[in-house]
């Protein structure tokens, strides 16, 4: 009979956290910036079809970094939860907070109970009539709400400090795009092309479904006056 060597719980958790962080740090970053009408997500993503940002429900969007197959599973589960809840009760009863809690619980139990934690970091955003709520969920299930702007992914820290320098609380959509683009570019020390950006967001002035995507040529047109 083989014997497992003793590993202290502290060491076990630390190893798992290191593992998850290493996976996430290999990936590219996503920046979320609040603007007057809602929230804009800008992701460095060379693929036009494998999304990092997507619609969950009328007022709720999701952004993720890390391992694609893992956050894609979480995204689908989130849509299922939201649609079933909205069907059983009412559409306005589906909230970003309850979804964020579900994600935090799922990531938390996977972190403590399974062999391998999720190598993902998530943002769940909900736009209300006069506010934007952004929940930031880490690989271990810890959750925080963010104000104004937030970056996740490989160069999150650098992008976050670039965002802090550029952000102001009265941006329009293109202004927010400019701020996020500049922060992602400088945070990584290179200039990002419109074709490598995935831009999507929540706009409270839209109809029932607040989620929108910006096409590459729209993004290029919005960035053009800002690039010297």
């Amino acid at each position, binding site marked *: 009979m083989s014997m497992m060597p003793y590993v202290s719980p502290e060491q076990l958790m630390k190893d798992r956290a290191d593992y998850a962080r290493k996976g996430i740090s290999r990936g590219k970053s996503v920046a979320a910036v609040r603007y007057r009408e809602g929230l804009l997500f800008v992701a460095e993503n060379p693929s036009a*079809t494998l999304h990092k940002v997507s619609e969950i429900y009328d007022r709720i969007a999701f952004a993720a970094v890390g391992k694609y197959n893992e956050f894609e599973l979480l995204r689908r589960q989130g849509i299922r939860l939201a649609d079933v809840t909205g069907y059983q009760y009412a559409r306005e009863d589906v909230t970003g907070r309850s979804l964020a809690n579900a994600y935090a619980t799922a990531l938390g139990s996977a972190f403590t109970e399974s062999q391998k934690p999720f190598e993902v970091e998530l943002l769940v955003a909900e736009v209300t009539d006069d506010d934007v709520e952004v929940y930031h969920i880490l690989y271990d299930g810890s959750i925080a709400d963010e104000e104004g702007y937030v970056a996740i992914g490989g160069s999150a820290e650098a992008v976050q400090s670039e965002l802090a320098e550029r952000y102001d609380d009265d941006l329009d959509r293109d202004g927010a795009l400019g701020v996020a683009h500049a922060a992602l570019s400088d945070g990584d020390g290179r200039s990002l092309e419109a074709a490598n950006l995935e831009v999507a967001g929540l706009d409270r002035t839209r109809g029932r479904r607040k989620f929108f995507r910006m096409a590459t040529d729209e993004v290029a047109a919005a960035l053009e006056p800002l690039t010297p």
Partner: protein
Amino acid sequence: MTQAAGPDPFDATGASFSATLRATAPEALEGRFQGPVPDHVDGTTVLAVTYDGGVVMAGDRRATAGNVISKRDMRKVFPADAWSAVAVSGAAGPSMELAKVFATELEHYEKVEGSPLSLEGKANKLAQMVRANLPMAMQGLVVVPLFAGYDLREHASRIYEYDGVGGRYEERRFATTGSGGRDARGSLKARYVDGLEADEAIDVAIHALWDAADEDAATGGPDVVRGIFPLVAVIDRDGYRELDGELVADRVDAVVSSRRL
């Protein structure tokens, strides 16, 4: 131990809302019963008419329970998604439920898969949902929808008709259903010509609803006292939109005037 087990990636119903609902909240679908059908409300005449570049969908507003008019402002035409609509006739409760689940189904698929279903795919999904209602239909709670939409891939408008057991039939020109459907169809047969403009198709649809209300006690005509008029929606390349109530009132007025003896 494995990571939180997700759904089977090769499950073909993975993007289906009704399958998700059955799996996660089966109690929401309970309510099948045996025995005599309790008193219930029926909805009546709905129709769809194609024209050059789009399709008009319209319905009267009356709901009846036996010989009682139970509702005068019922909605029987619903947007299914941005480019299609579903109109329902038959038992009101199950009909409206069908429209709601169908719309959720289309949105669910679009969000999960990242692209909308084809128009044909939407029509087939609705047929399956009508078929799933068969046990209820056998007891008298028949639901017969009508589906119309603009096919963005083919750049054409299409109408699909159904029967109570889930048969799906594509119609090129117009379709009707409900208790006044036969009278509406007669009216459309007489007035429909190929290459109608949108405005003409709207008038043809209002004529047909008038004819249905004229012959069928369960179909409501325009209610000038309460200001309740048929619900008229148009779907074209720009998507689904409902006509403003005042505009419908004007068109109804014009149609009625033209018919005055």
